[in-house]
């Protein structure tokens, strides 16, 4: 019997399953939607008094290799957690590990991001697993994810083969009641096969959250007499029963996220509807409405019983078109120190080249201070390439790359050394907010704190940068906008003298770390008073607390969001601060 139930999200459920299965080593690099798994392991190990080593790794390859080393040669039960694009970073080791038999057990949890919502690309972990013959599970709910995690680690230990669990943000961040068992006693239920419906002609094959959606939509449409739903849990290797199910149906619809994996494994193109023939959209998240739409269409096409198709009430859109709906696209938080950094960068050279990076900082795009977002670390190496392209034409143009502190440690040390060695002239702004903010505030190595709160040696980024051979290294508080502008200008003057990259570290804590309190804050923003309605602050500053009030033709500040950082004064040409910036611009004219 299980001891109790807890209402948890999918990522915590995965952590629970692993802890109950006797996990000994866990390593991870944070990335949405995987970030809550490792803290979950810490939570449950404390609850159970289990001895589990937990660590935030510097990147996914480190996490994978730590877990693999512990499992392969140390005989431990180990696991590593990452997001789908993180698996790419761990790829070299993943490829080698599948052919090596391990002494212990190894589970890799890779969380996909259909949409994508917070990644640069969609990517299907199941495809990589199936392509290279690694067993992979695709759980459809948090409770199932706990069972799968327990089973995967146990099975891996018994069979000496690594196992992948693929989650998606919809499972990782779903919340439900999950039974907790004493370690080693979980009663695992793996539901695979025919789970709903009694139709004999149209079969639906689905996995993960897509399967749960199909289940609910069949209920809503009252279609359980017309279709049969087959749930796939272990996507690879495929169960024989799936082939039999497909054979027994006249037509088969496959619903899965995000690539064609089950569909490709089934093969039979004449019988199968899915992404290949366009029945299912080729990209993007599969939502409830999409499943309802697909199912209604397919049922109508298959001559299902006449039913009223769902017709959306266009009156809603009509009514909404008459009200001001605030769009709220993703933005840096009010008071974010790095909005100030981007502002300074952009103020100095509106036309510079701005190689950017992954994370909160991609959001600098709305201030015109980020031009690229390729992958982690690419900000630095792209800057090198841009430099070369212009240098061949004999031009020194301002190239201002920006990256976050966590990304710098993750992927930029080798590129920065590469830039030093190859004599590249560009400015790198490292935005140091002392945390991995976008994914939920994990401490970065320079803070000297580990995932379970114990202290470790902190490393200062400026020391690393110097060690890599950079001569121009300055640390600036980004709230001091004139100083930022001056320093970036000086950095550019230095580029004219020596063939080396110059580094400016913009250091101020993330506001989420300080719980929204601004250290030595400015003054309450009464920027509204003198506003002449030019909107230039909206263009260059874009703080979520600001909006333009059409009635008064002035800027309006939302007091409940404003942190009184006072930085927006610099962005306003009628304020004293904004006027004074011109003086700071003197240095660094290209």
């Amino acid at each position, binding site marked *: 019997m299980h001891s109790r*139930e807890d*209402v948890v*999200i999918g990522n915590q459920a995965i952590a629970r399953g692993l802890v109950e299965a006797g996990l000994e080593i866990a390593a991870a690099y944070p990335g*949405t939607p995987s970030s809550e798994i490792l803290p979950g392991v810490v939570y449950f190990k404390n609850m159970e008094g289990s001895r589990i080593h937990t660590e935030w790794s510097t990147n996914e390859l480190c996490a994978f290799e730590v877990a693999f080393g512990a499992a392969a040669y140390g005989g431990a039960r180990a696991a590593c957690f990452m997001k789908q694009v993180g698996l790419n970073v761990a790829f070299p080791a993943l490829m080698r590990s599948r052919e090596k038999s391990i002494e212990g057990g190894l589970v890799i949890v890779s969380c996909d991001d259909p949409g994508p919502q*917070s990644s640069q690309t969609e990517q299907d972990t199941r495809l990589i697993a199936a392509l290279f013959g690694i067993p992979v599970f695709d759980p*459809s*709910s948090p409770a199932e994810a706990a069972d799968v995690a327990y089973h995967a680690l146990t099975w891996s230990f018994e069979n000496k083969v690594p196992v992948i669990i693929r989650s998606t*943000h*919809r499972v990782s*961040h*779903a*919340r*439900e*009641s999950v039974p907790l068992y004493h370690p080693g006693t979980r009663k695992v239920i793996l539901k695979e096969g025919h789970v709903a419906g009694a139709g004999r002609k149209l079969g639906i094959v689905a996995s993960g*959250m897509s*399967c*749960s*959606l199909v*289940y*609910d*939509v069949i*209920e*809503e449409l009252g279609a359980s007499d017309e279709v049969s739903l087959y749930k796939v849990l272990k996507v690879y290797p495929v169960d024989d029963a799936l082939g039999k199910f497909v054979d027994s149906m006249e037509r088969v619809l496959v619903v899965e996220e995000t690539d064609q994996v089950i569909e490709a494994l089934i093969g039979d193109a004449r019988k199968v509807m899915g992404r290949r023939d366009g029945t299912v959209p080729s990209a993007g998240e599969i*939502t*409830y*409405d999409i499943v309802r739409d697909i199912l209604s269409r397919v049922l109508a096409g298959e001559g299902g019983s006449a039913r009223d198709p*769902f017709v*959306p*009430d266009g*009156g*809603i*859109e*009509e*009514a*909404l*078109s*008459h*009200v*001001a*709906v*605030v769009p*709220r696209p*993703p*933005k*840096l*938080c*009010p008071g974010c120190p790095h909005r100030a950094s981007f502002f300074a960068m952009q103020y100095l050279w509106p036309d510079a080249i701005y190689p950017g990076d992954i994370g*909160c900082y991609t*959001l600098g795009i709305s201030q015109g201070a980020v031009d690229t977002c390729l992958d982690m670390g690419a900000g630095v190496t792209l800057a090198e390439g841009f430099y070369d392209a212009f240098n061949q034409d004999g031009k020194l143009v301002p190239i201002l790359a920006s990256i976050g502190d966590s990304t710098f440690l993750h992927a930029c040390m080798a590129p920065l050394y590469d830039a030093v060695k190859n004599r590249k002239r560009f400015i790198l702004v490292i935005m140091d907010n002392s945390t991995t*903010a*976008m994914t*939920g*505030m994990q401490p970065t190595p320079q803070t000297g704190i580990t995932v379970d709160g114990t202290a470790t040696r902190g490393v200062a980024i400026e020391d690393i940068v110097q060690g890599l051979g950079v001569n121009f290294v300055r640390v600036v508080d980004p709230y001091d906008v004139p100083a930022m502008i001056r320093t970036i200008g000086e950095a550019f003057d230095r580029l004219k003298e020596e063939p080396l990259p110059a580094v400016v570290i913009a250091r101020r804590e993330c*506001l*989420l770390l300080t719980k*929204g309190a601004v250290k030595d804050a400015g003054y309450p923003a009464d920027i509204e008073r003198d506003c002449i309605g030019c909107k230039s602050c909206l263009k260059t500053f874009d703080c*979520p*607390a600001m909006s333009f009030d059409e009635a008064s033709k002035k800027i309006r500040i939302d007091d*409940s*969001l404003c942190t009184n950082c006072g930085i927006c004064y610099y962005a306003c040409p009628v304020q004293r601060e904004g006027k004074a910036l011109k003086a700071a611009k003197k240095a660094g004219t290209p």
Partner: protein
Amino acid sequence: MRHEIICAGIGGRGVLLASTILIEAAIKSGLKAVASDEYGMSQRGGSVVSLVKVGDFASPFIGRENGGILLAFEESEFYKALLFLKKGGLALVNTRAAELPPSIAGLLEKREITCRLVDGDGIARQTGMFQSANMALLGFFAAFGITPFTKEVLEETIRSRVPEKFLAKNLEVFGKGFDAATKMGAAGDRRTDIV
């Protein structure tokens, strides 16, 4: 019993706490429930939608015009979430406004939606709590007595969820929300029954 509930608001204002309390209250009452924490990017001030489904559902997602109850913690997010509210649904909106724009009022009328405007921020501020409009709205919702979300069950869930330090104040705001609803007879005169 089946409920499909939409909680809509903006980041940093306790939308997720409200939905967590709803799902835990349902589970406490012996019902099956599933919720979705809609995290986007980690940021203050961005749109947040969290969904709760009570009953025999497999997924926590709500189709267009399927939701029965909409708790909107921000007026502008209320508009966006209207796409998910079904005909005859119930909407509670945290706003200082005394009435909605005519186009929206007309739409609600046409769709037979029961809508209550609640000054949740005002209620929270009375007790010196500036970020607790979520509790005021939950208290207001409790007055409707929709099983399993009664005052007692919700209060008990808040007790088990909210840290000791903030508990008394949160319960006070919750109670004030409940009283406000009772005083204005908000739960009566419902256009349609929610089942």
